[in-house]
């Protein structure tokens, strides 16, 4: 059972300290209710700490469909815990999780009909109208993930966009660096740690698209930290030039 929960936690993108507490599946109705809460604090070497605040019911939201099932996420957590940054939760009084709201908003913006959306997701037209009304009055914030899907990856901060001599984000040199085909001398701790993480994940990526996204993390890092990466950039450029030749 725990393995099933772990798989579902991955699909819902739940991370520690959140965990699935219970799952109720209606096979015939193709519907699944998931109760999410905070995991019990782990003790360190047997040391006992104070118990956390009592958990209360925080809300229930319709989430994205998974494997043909309609998912409902119910969250039970202390009232002091902020939920607003989790895609699998929704705004109070709203029917959808943030991820679902973002998906529906995008489809509406692209001109997909209300009827089509309702058929596709198995949602009630009245709830879509509630979402539309909320968007018009801006009481629902569109998911940043949705925005990220459309926006170019330019990194953060003033260095973004100003990267003379830096290979473009889609240059194959980033994939070769991520895959370990290029070895460079690195003098910056953060790049050493990032590259170790990226390489361990890159090997396990199931397809080229996933690997491309992983390689773009390295481009983003270089854009953000270009000022301290002169020696590393020089080696990368030399490698890119060798590849072109």
């Amino acid at each position, binding site marked *: 059972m725990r393995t099933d929960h772990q798989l579902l936690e991955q699909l819902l993108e739940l991370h*520690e300290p959140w965990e699935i507490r219970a799952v109720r599946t209606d096979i015939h109705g193709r519907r699944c209710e998931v109760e999410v809460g905070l995991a019990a604090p782990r003790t360190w070497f047997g040391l006992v*700490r104070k118990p956390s605040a009592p958990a209360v019911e925080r809300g229930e939201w319709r989430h994205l469909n998974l494997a043909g099932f309609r998912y409902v996420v119910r969250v039970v957590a202390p009232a*002091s815990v902020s939920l607003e940054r989790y895609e699998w939760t929704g705004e109070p009084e709203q029917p959808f999780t943030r991820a679902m709201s973002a998906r529906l908003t995008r489809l509406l913006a692209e001109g997909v009909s209300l009827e089509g959306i309702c058929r596709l997701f198995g949602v009630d037209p009245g709830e879509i109208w509630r979402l539309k009304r909320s968007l018009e009055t801006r009481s629902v914030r569109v998911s940043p993930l949705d925005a990220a899907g459309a926006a170019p990856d330019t990194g953060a901060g003033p260095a973004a966009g100003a990267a003379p001599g830096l290979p473009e984000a889609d240059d194959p040199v980033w994939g070769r660096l991520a895959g370990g085909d290029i070895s460079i001398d690195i003098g910056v*701790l953060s790049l050493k740690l*990032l*590259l170790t*993480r990226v390489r361990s994940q890159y090997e396990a990526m199931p397809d080229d698209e996933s690997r491309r996204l992983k390689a773009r993390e390295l481009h983003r890092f270089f854009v*953000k930290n270009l000022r301290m990466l002169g020696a590393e950039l020089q080696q990368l450029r030399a490698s890119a030039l060798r590849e072109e030749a």
Partner: protein
Amino acid sequence: MMNSGTTLPVRAPGADLGDLLDVDAVSALILAGERLLLAGDEALLARLPRGTWIGGTIPYFVAADGGTSSRERLFCTRLPAEVEVDSIRLYDAASLAHVCADAPAEGFSVMILPAFSEVHSLFARNAPNYEDMYLKPLIGWIAGVHLDDLGRATPKVFDGSRGEGCEERAVVLHARLPEPRYARIEIVNLFRPGSGPGLRFTDKGFSAAKVLVDGVEQDFAAWLRRQGSDTRLPLVADYCGAMVNVSIKSVEAGRVDFYAPVFPDIEYRIAAPIDDYVARFLAALPADVPPVTFSCNCILNYLYSNLEGRHTGPMRGPATFGEIAYQLLNQTLVYLTIEG
């Protein structure tokens, strides 16, 4: 800015910013508007006035006079004038994963976590996968207690802006830097992988029963005993040239506990022995390092290398229950410089 009646250490341009001060001197600095990173005894931290400071409990330091233990003085690091404090926040288990995302685009963050707390455990296991991890500089340390008080006292962190001490939350100071200045975090780790076999673990965690020794599964505790390993030496992994330690806490029948988690996708080796830590440490310091804004070293280096009364050059700071240079480290000196 300063109270003229209080004797305060002079900060010469380019000089290191941290040293031990008594509680009255630190209070005066706070009231004068200095932005401080503090380490010391809980009773001292609790007496300080509200202001722009964060702190954590620990009574061990490497100060200007060398390694020392004190319950009467606080180690005080003053942030340079060019640093703008963006915010001071407390993070619980649910919000901890946002610590890097919350940081300003240009600047750095200093985090203190109470040892043995849930946030300590969560950070140790999951930090490498936090949003914006490695993109924005994150440095810090794990608050602890006097070793005589282990099991009786509880490590705490303090948010000076609210005058609040916490056992279960992390305190973080997010700071901005003006263009073109940027923060850089580096480490000094003298440990190198020894000549022994590669060790891998099948699960992420703070303890392991089994280990794959050159690919062959073994009882890890029994294997360590057979090897006659010195358990003061950490496991070392090569992260693209950065040596990252996992220190061994204890070896019991059928189980080995660590001070930081091992990860299944990393190969470790037992570290090679170090004969004279201080001599090697001073030799390992980069010659052209800019003035150090903040640094801390590990309590295990303090203890195992007998740092009490010994000097480690420009690197001063608390000797802690764990160091943070982006992720949790063990038996490593971490430091922050402002460059550009």
